[in-house]
């Protein structure tokens, strides 16, 4: 049975139709944390976040507190919030920016104060037209209330926040590509090292990049203390987390549940969560953390929803999006569509990714639509091996960023788990699913 013992941290206003308004936000404890933070020393605010052990909610799962402490020695110039949510099947930040923009804004101001940054940018996916409007309105409200701008709320701290619309590019979710987009350029990921924008970020200056959900957790952490957050969850995976559940389930949606205390089975089958498989069919497999992640079979349904727990089994919790495929799903088509996505979104800088993704997509296309050959199986794996040598997890990299090394995940999973399905496609001259 799913555990619902943990409080709701980022979705506490979910039940209100006007959850996005300043009035509702103030009435439900909004901006109390900011006032509290401003009475503390900035480093003490940062220490609370460190104590919370809040893992970044973007996909890589790097501890937010440690990201900040890398900058303790040298002052940070900019705070950039990554709201370019584009990992297929991930839709949690979409929910947060539309439904609780003030919570995000408050989190951003708290982070800026802790880091003593005076200018922050919220880089938001361009396709979030309503989200962009809601966040801009929240910023306007915050300025009017004196919570943004010069010497906020009578303190000696000044902060400006600018919302920056993206323009349709998956790769801009990669933090160095995002910074390029913020500098007005093509979204090409930067060569590493330097590995972190903390060393060289926007305009080559020290920059902190944090995800929308990560920011949205900060008001609660300041109000309740880092220890209270760290008491939730288990192991390195503390607190609650948003899971975006999609695919062949009865109730797709965004759910906030405690990490580790719940399993994939709880999320997918509990009637208050996913509600089980559509038409009560059997589950075939599921993707545990966005399409960059290797797939899991039903035997791993009882695995706890924790970062290390999933990593140990050879995949990742990634962006927190779970896609369920049932016994009627064609896995060849699924792998083809995911690969087509990577092919479209490859930025084109690195040969293995640019050429490999298109080639893989064409091979999978012919398997799905007729014309596939048995030799194609080895060809697929060989091409994947050229992008991520050894097909290990975590993958080896031959490219500037991890988009390339994410391409083999679905192909390798589908071929390894369901080779018979591929063989049937060859035998039947294509897909026989409806």
């Amino acid at each position, binding site marked *: 049975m799913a555990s619902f013992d943990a409080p709701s941290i980022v979705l506490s206003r979910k039940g209100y139709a006007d959850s996005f308004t300043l009035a509702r936000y103030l009435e439900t404890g909004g901006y109390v944390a900011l006032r509290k933070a401003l009475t503390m020393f*900035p*480093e003490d605010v940062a220490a609370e976040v460190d104590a919370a052990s809040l893992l970044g909610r973007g996909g890589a799962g790097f501890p937010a507190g440690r990201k900040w402490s890398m900058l303790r020695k040298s*002052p940070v110039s900019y705070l950039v919030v990554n709201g370019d949510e*584009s*990992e*297929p*099947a*991930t*839709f949690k*930040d*979409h929910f947060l920016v539309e439904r609780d923009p003030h919570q995000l804004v408050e989190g951003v101001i708290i982070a800026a104060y802790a880091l*003593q940054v*005076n*200018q922050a940018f919220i880089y938001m*996916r*361009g*396709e979030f*037209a*309503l989200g*962009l*409007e809601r966040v*801009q*309105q929240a910023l*306007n409200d915050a300025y*009017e209330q004196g919570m943004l*701008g*010069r010497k906020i709320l009578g303190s*000696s701290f*000044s902060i*400006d926040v*600018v*919302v*920056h*619309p*993206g*323009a*349709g*590019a*998956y790769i801009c979710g990669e933090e160095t590509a995002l910074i390029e*987009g*913020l*500098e*007005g*350029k*093509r979204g090409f990921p930067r060569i590493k090292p330097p590995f972190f924008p903390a060393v060289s970020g926007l*305009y080559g200056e020290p920059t902190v990049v944090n995800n929308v959900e990560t920011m949205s957790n900060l008001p609660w952490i300041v109000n309740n203390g880092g220890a209270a957050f760290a008491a939730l969850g288990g192991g390195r995976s503390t607190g609650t987390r948003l899971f*975006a559940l*999609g*695919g*062949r389930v009865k109730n*797709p949606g*965004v759910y906030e549940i405690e990490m580790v205390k719940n399993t994939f089975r709880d999320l997918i089958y509990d009637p208050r969560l996913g509600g089980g498989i559509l038409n009560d069919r059997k589950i075939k497999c599921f*993707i545990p953390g966005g399409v960059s992640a290797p797939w899991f079979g039903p035997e791993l349904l009882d695995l706890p929803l924790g970062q290390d727990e999933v990593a140990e089994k050879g995949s990742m919790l990634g962006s927190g999006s779970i*896609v369920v495929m049932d016994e009627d799903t064609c896995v060849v088509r*699924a792998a083809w*569509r*995911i690969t087509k*996505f990577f092919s479209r*979104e490859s*930025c084109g800088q690195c040969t293995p990714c640019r050429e490999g993704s298109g080639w893989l997509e064409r091979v999978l296309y012919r398997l799905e639509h007729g014309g596939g050959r048995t030799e194609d199986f080895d060809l697929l794996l060989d091409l994947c091996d050229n992008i991520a040598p050894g097909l290990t997890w975590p993958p080896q990299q031959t490219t500037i960023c991890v988009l390339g090394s994410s391409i083999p995940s679905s192909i390798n999973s589908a071929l390894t788990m369901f080779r018979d399905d591929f063989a049937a496609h060859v035998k039947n001259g294509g897909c026989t699913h409806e």
Partner: protein
Amino acid sequence: MSHFRQDIRQRADELVALYPRSRSAMLPLLHLAQEQDGYLSDEGIAEVAELTDTSAADVRGTASFYDMFHLEPVGKYVVGVCTNIACLLAGGEEMLEHASVTLGCAVGATSEDGLFTLEESECLAGCDVAPCVQVNHRYVRSTTPEEFDTLIDDLRRGRLDSDVPAHGTLIRVRRSGGLRAPRAEVAEQRTEAKAARDARAAKEEKK
């Protein structure tokens, strides 16, 4: 002579002032150029180049990287149907095919009356209402062929004008005012804050 209308030009100048470097305003300025012209015209590109201290080639080179920027005219409504994994499992491909029939144009093309441009979208982060459809980057409820046809009919009759502005208009909420933290004062604040923090750290170390 500005190609931008007076109000658009004013907003463009305000946008540039929000960033430490003018080129950073590139993406929002390109959205603004599309708001005026519906797509990126040569004149719009030239003006963005002037505003960002770059060349028209720089602007075009940047714009062509991003899916939301159109270098050719598009319809008043850009209809995006997602066929990525979650939508695929909910009939996204069939929805795209149906959309193509209803609108009478191929994917990537514009309908004969010039009103609709159809696109196959990558994941739009709307997987709970799959298959997900957006019009001008606004979520519209259309998960069945019938709902899609009603949606198109409503758009044709102007019933959704208040929810879905013409293509190009992305953010209708204007920013109220520019930056408020004066740069010189902020620099002073930063120095003071750092000195205070270093003093606290030194005191802590002594203990």
